[in-house]
């Protein structure tokens, strides 16, 4: 079974796996590194519990909330389930997301009474109105065919290799992503997401890491800085590298595919 290095990786391929000994003189090609990042996220099942808090541009702090992210990622499927833990207002609200065969990200929002309150929504939907975006959590840019090297960079005093991922296929909500990846730990220290006009939408930065049972390094805390200067902190406070996925975990995805914005039958 592959490591869950991706456990928290749910959030942006932020997880790590085994080192492959890259150093400054022996950097892997961008395509190879992108593939490694993709493989590092593979997991038969993981859970990560996160505490999320945001401070708006006016310095006002929004009510923190907790979510549980369950994921299953392999060559055949990439699925995430995000459930609200607290406060009570989000307790029975969940999101399920998957990467479809054609590379599209499909997101379902649902409540306690499946399938009555199930709704397919835009992949760029923010989780409980925070800066956490479901699309980002599946990190689809590692699948894009065009990966361009951006050279070596330094983020918070740490060396990393810039990779610019670009796509023109279809109408992806985000066509360009620049990630600064630590080739050894396979952690993206910084991920910047741009729109079609190359305007920076948000920057996701790794702040703290942790070593997991598998030996892989995973993100413990990250920050999402929005273009409007809202800053969101995501703190992983608990997790399970070997989460047992049940039939109910992704049941919402198995219901009929209603058109976006319409309630399921």
């Amino acid at each position, binding site marked *: 079974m592959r490591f869950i290095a991706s456990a928290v990786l749910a959030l942006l391929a932020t997880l790590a796996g085994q080192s492959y000994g890259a150093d400054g003189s022996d950097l892997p090609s961008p395509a190879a590194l992108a593939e490694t990042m993709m493989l590092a996220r593979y997991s038969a099942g993981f859970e990560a519990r996160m505490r999320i808090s945001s401070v708006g541009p006016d310095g006002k702090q929004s009510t923190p909330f907790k979510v549980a992210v369950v994921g299953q990622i392999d060559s055949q499927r990439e699925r995430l389930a995000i459930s609200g833990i607290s406060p009570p207002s989000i*307790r029975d609200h969940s999101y399920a997301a998957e990467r479809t065969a054609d590379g599209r990200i499909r997101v379902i929002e649902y409540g306690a009474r499946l399938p009555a309150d199930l709704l397919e929504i835009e992949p760029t939907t923010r989780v409980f109105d925070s800066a956490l975006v479901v699309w980002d959590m599946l990190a689809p840019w590692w699948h894009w065919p065009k990966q361009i090297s951006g050279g070596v960079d330094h983020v918070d005093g740490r060396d990393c290799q810039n990779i610019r991922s670009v796509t023109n296929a279809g109408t992806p909500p985000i066509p360009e992503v620049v990630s600064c990846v630590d080739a050894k730990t396979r952690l993206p220290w910084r991920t910047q997401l741009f729109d079609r006009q190359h305007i920076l939408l948000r920057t996701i930065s790794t702040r703290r890491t942790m070593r997991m049972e598998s030996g892989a390094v995973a993100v413990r805390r990250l920050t999402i800085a929005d273009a409007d200067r809202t800053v969101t902190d995501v703190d992983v*406070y*608990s997790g399970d*590298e070997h989460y047992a996925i049940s039939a109910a975990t992704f049941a919402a995805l198995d219901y009929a595919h209603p058109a976006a914005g319409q309630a399921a039958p």
Partner: protein
Amino acid sequence: MNLFGFALGNLYRRPARSSLTIAAISLGVASIVALTSIAWGFEASWQRANDARGTDLIVTRIASENAMPSPFLADKLQATLKGYPHVQEVVGLLSEMLSVGDNAPPVFVFGWEYRSYLWQHLRLIDGHLPANDTDADIVLGSLAAELLHKKVGDSVEIEGRQFLIRGIFDSPAVVENGAVVMTLTLAQQITDKPGKVNILNIKLDDHASDSVIDDFKTRVRETLPGYLAITSGELVRKNAVVRISKAMSNATTLIASLVGALVVFNTMLMSINERTREIGLLLALGWQRQTIVKLIVSESVVLSLAGGLAGILIGIAIAGGLEHVELMRGKIEAVFSMPFLIAILGLSVVLGVAGGLYPALKAARMLPSQALRQE
């Protein structure tokens, strides 16, 4: 006046410099005392928690070096271990650091198998233990109750669920006093880890000897790949937090010792430079060079010993103060031992000798004629 009195007199003549030197040494020694006592206390507290529960052996995952080992499915393993010789009980435990309520700092939340031996060492101060396996009832350690400002009958929110506080207990282990305890079933439900535990506690019967424990360990190693049977002491020593805190305390000891020796060295070097004529006069009066060395080394040892004594007192006060800081309460416990404190005083003497030796030798090598010409 004897030599020691003469040395004391020299130190009194420069009170500001002597006080600053003592203060610098005492800060270094205080950091050693505080950090080491907390590192030992952390280890001792976990050890006491396991000893108080009456656990003889712990089965956990091999790679587990976190504060609590990673969770694993317990059912099959538990059944297998129950079949081992001399095994009386195999009890699962699940633990997480979770926030209790909105603004409270995270606390340890322990899930213990309902009616297992783990509950027996708790001394109830108020209320009762959970009445059944699945009711949303919890018990709080006395420190946790104080920190959360809760009493029996109140409710608390953990991971989005409300729990009724059924009892408040006291435990020999500070870790447990600062914790929330619920049944294992409940802990598995709220953390979405059905059937999982962090560790399996093994209680052996009264006939189990050391060789039985060794056989048990070997059997687990050979027949249960991925798992490890260890004593609670071994688990605590493998704990990453214990190892980090010990490494930090060792590093602090090394750095503080070097700084302390340099401070003494600098002070004594300045002192003999200022007293060149005085030392020259003593030599001209017939003092032996050996006596000059003894005088200077005595002064440096007195300085470092005074710094050491003050540092021990400050270190004890710092560690005691940290125990009462709200964020730390129930999580740390300082442990002081007399041999350790004596060793710290010994270290102070070594620092004094090391820092004072070169200045003393330099002073003793002076020629009286040259020293007396010094302005």
